[in-house]
């Protein structure tokens, strides 16, 4: 089979994975860009979402209720990080690492002390599964994932327009000014972390159903994928998408692009021992583009100035 046709075949799967991770990336966007906090809880709360969802579905709960519980569990994880940061005075990055560390044990407890819990689509009425990603039917996970993404973006768009949401944005933009306006920045940071980790756990819950199991290591390195999606989205759409809702959409598209590039690299027949190197390179290139661009512009601007003075 030719490379292109097999790639076209692989695209639905890559897009589905990208959409599911995109919801997590939107969560990362809230802390990283809006709150201006580097939150490393996500590596743990992604697996928490997956674990809670899988265990509840296995216990016979409806998948929708299981998703809701997963989101609540993720919010609880964010709440703990928030308390570490605001009530115990621990720097945000450390608070996140502490929660992430603790979540390993918590997740193991949730999963009944097992590192991997299977969730077969043949046995439970799952909302989505990788099995149907190429089928033209209602069971295809893509429409549902799109629906989730749109719903999440719409909800966040509405929320960040409310008074509370605006105060949250102010907290991230200029905490001193926000406090001067009578905003309780500490409670806002906690709220933002809860919101973010709730979304991350939602993503974990969707992913666990998609890949048919929850794994204690499934969140490892999630923050890298999240940041990559945020930055790829900004590099490509930064100048076009000015609206807040569109910016969130860019993050989601960023995650899809990340997975498509990864899939291309794999389809090219790369030695998968180099997978992590490739991942790092993809992110590094997208991180470097804004810097190279700014240097290029400054350079051309300077040479223009020089040209001008010579003419005078």
């Amino acid at each position, binding site marked *: 089979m030719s490379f292109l046709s097999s790639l076209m075949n*692989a695209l639905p799967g890559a897009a589905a994975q990208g959409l599911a*991770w995109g919801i997590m990336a939107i969560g990362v966007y809230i802390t990283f860009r809006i709150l201006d906090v580097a939150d490393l809880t996500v590596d743990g709360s992604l697996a928490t979402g997956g674990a809670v969802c899988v265990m509840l579905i296995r216990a016979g709960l409806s998948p929708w209720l299981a998703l809701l519980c997963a989101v609540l569990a993720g919010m609880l994880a964010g709440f703990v990080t928030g308390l570490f940061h605001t009530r115990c005075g621990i720097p945000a990055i450390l608070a996140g690492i502490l929660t992430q560390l603790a979540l390993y*044990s918590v997740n193991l407890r949730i999963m009944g002390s097992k590192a991997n819990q299977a969730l077969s689509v043949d046995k439970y009425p799952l909302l989505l599964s990788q099995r149907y990603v190429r089928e033209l039917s209602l069971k295809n996970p893509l429409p549902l994932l799109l629906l989730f993404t749109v719903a999440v973006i719409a909800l966040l768009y509405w929320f960040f327009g409310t008074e509370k949401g605006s105060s949250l944005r102010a907290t991230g933009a200029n905490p001193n000014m926000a406090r001067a306006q009578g905003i309780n920045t500490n409670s806002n940071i906690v709220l933002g972390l809860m919101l973010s980790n709730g979304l991350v756990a939602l993503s974990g819950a969707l992913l666990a159903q998609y890949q048919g199991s929850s794994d204690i290591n499934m969140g490892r390195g999630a923050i890298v994928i999240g940041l990559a999606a945020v930055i790829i989205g900004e590099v490509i759409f930064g100048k076009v998408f000015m609206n807040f809702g569109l910016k969130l959409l860019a993050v989601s598209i960023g995650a899809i692009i990340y997975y498509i590039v990864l899939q291309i690299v794999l389809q090219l027949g790369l*030695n998968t021992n180099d997978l992590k190197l490739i991942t790092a390179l993809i992110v590094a290139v997208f991180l470097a583009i804004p810097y190279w661009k700014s240097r290029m512009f400054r350079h051309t601007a300077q040479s223009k100035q020089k040209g001008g003075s010579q003419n005078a």
Partner: protein
Amino acid sequence: MNTKRIVSLVASLALVLSLSLGLSGCGDKAAQDDSQDSTDGSAKYVVGICQLVQHEALDAATQGFIDALNEALPGQVEFQNKNASGDSANCSTIVNGFVSDGVDLIMANATGALTAAAAATSDIPILGTSITAYGVALDIDNFSGTVGGNISGTSDLADLGKQADMISEWFPEAKKVALLFCSGEPNSRYQIEEVAKCLSDKGIETKEFAFTDTNDVASVTQSAADYADVVYIPTDNIAASNTEAISNVLVPAGVPAICGEEGICKGCGVATLSISYYDLGVTTGKMAAKILTGEADISEMPIEFTEATPKYNASMCETLGIEPLEGYTAIEE
């Protein structure tokens, strides 16, 4: 979008692609070294291999699988050998590639790879290997020994009852046994639970000592050594990568270990009921050949095992002053 943006975007994408092309060039050569007989394009069957993580035992199973298939169907099989580098999300991406390529068979090496493959397709035959308990890995109630559908494979489970017997045969005086394993390993918990059951039937007390990763192996092993007369270590990947750290604690404490696998025993144990992962891969490869040629129907193939041989670690026995039992062969250094 202005032209500069488009130019820079195209340039960056080109850069990423050329980098990956360059690296995949090296990758192709490496893959060909792995499977000498694979031919480009002219192969009759395409087999996708998804391995969870780079690891001595898993690598041996993959190699055995490739060798067995190349022997059974020389020059007819093209392998796509992919490794998820320990990340279960990568398994999904890899398997997605296999399904879209329409490979003839998927070999899933380790639990994470198997669950990802099972979620991805119900048509393409999937053979698992290095999996301890299929009933646990795939969540099947009252597992009968045959998965059915499009899944079968081989199990690395050596008889756990026999392993518990080994502990009481080698150390009849032992009253307390520490079960040392990694809490992140799906297979380990099943094994230690079974061994604990068998030991408690013999009136031996057991306690679990679980470490989370490489960083706390030494301290957890220390508390296990303080507690126990004998330590039992299952076929645990993290333990396998840290045998030196474990032995550095156990040897000074004078506590012997019975292990579930030869590699771990060679590093830090006294005796083991060993299976060879290479042989396990060969068994899997033979099953694959039957499925590819249409000789056997995967839905009716039961999970296969490989023979376990009792072995002991000669230098460790000498250090701890233990007399090896009869019927055990020394592990080659």
